């Protein structure tokens, strides 16, 4: 049985559990599943915005490509286009800059749950040293917390409005 098949079983069991020891991702990962049950190379995930951040009370959609060389090479993980405003994400494409997803920092012991969790942590702790969104990076670097919060909240409010109206 391939590694990704094994992972799928674990993911189903983990995310279905209410026990915080079995499922440490409660309130973090809402769902993680293959887009098509018969093709385990394309996955999608929904994560909750971390509390005490401007992302709180919003959900974010993540797309995952699992290459055939996985787990020797990392999965490719993106946000949905125009889903989020964050200094380590290129909003228009959803591209994420996260060290553990780069081939040189990846290790095969990590699984998709780890990766999605790492993306969630990136929302809580933006890394402004290597921004994909330079403007957002600069705002954080200036330590202008209220400007950062304001811009992200405005973006997300607009996002919701364009979706439902």
């Amino acid at each position: 049985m391939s590694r990704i098949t094994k992972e799928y079983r674990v993911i189903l069991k983990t995310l279905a559990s209410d026990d915080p020891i079995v499922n440490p991702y409660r309130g973090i990962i809402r769902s993680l599943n293959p887009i098509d049950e018969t093709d385990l190379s394309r996955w999608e995930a929904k994560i909750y915005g971390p509390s005490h951040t401007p992302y709180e009370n919003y959900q974010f959609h993540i797309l995952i490509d699992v290459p055939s060389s996985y787990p020797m090479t990392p999965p490719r993980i993106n946000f949905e286009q125009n889903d989020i405003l964050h200094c380590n994400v290129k909003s228009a494409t959803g591209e994420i800059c996260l060290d553990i997803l780069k081939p040189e920092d990846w290790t095969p012991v990590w699984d998709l749950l780890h990766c999605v969790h790492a993306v969630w942590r990136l929302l809580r702790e933006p890394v402004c040293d290597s921004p994909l969104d330079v403007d957002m990076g600069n705002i954080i670097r200036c330590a202008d917390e209220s400007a950062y919060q304001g811009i992200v909240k405005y973006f997300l409010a607009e996002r919701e409005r364009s979706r439902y109206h």
Partner: protein
Amino acid sequence: MSTYEEEHGIQQNSRATQEIGENSQEEQRRQVRSQLQGLFQNFGSSGGEGNRYSDSTLLLQLLSQLLPESLQEEWLQEMDKGKNAGCPDSFASSLPRINKRKLKVTDNCSICYTNYLEDEYPLVVELPHCHHKFDLECLSVWLSRSTTCPLCRDDVMGHRIINEIDTTEAELEEDWGMYG
């Protein structure tokens, strides 16, 4: 790197030694000679091991400056290639095998997530220094592209030289785990 480049470096260097020797005092000559000797020793050892030791990278870069410009770039690219690649094939197969009786029912390979004992004849190996265990098959694939332990990022090739110095504590801990 090719023998041509190697020879080229040596030729230029020995010429330099000669010139300095002719024009300066005995002591200076000796100094230069011992410096060059050190340089070549490092060069030789890293050449043999495929450029994996970061401490000789600087020396190689210095040496590369002796090469004509056209060759310099090629050589530096070659060095980078060496850095990204994994261990030699012989490394994974030379690792100590773990006896089946020492494996617990719950032990599994962190690369393929399979319990070792699901296999009737599990081929499990242990990395030196950090003692992390993996299926030989899984680890071989990983070590063909990396030189680090998948679990702790320990540089598995780095300990072949300094093994004696800093493994004592790790080995002690391992022993406690085994007999305690």
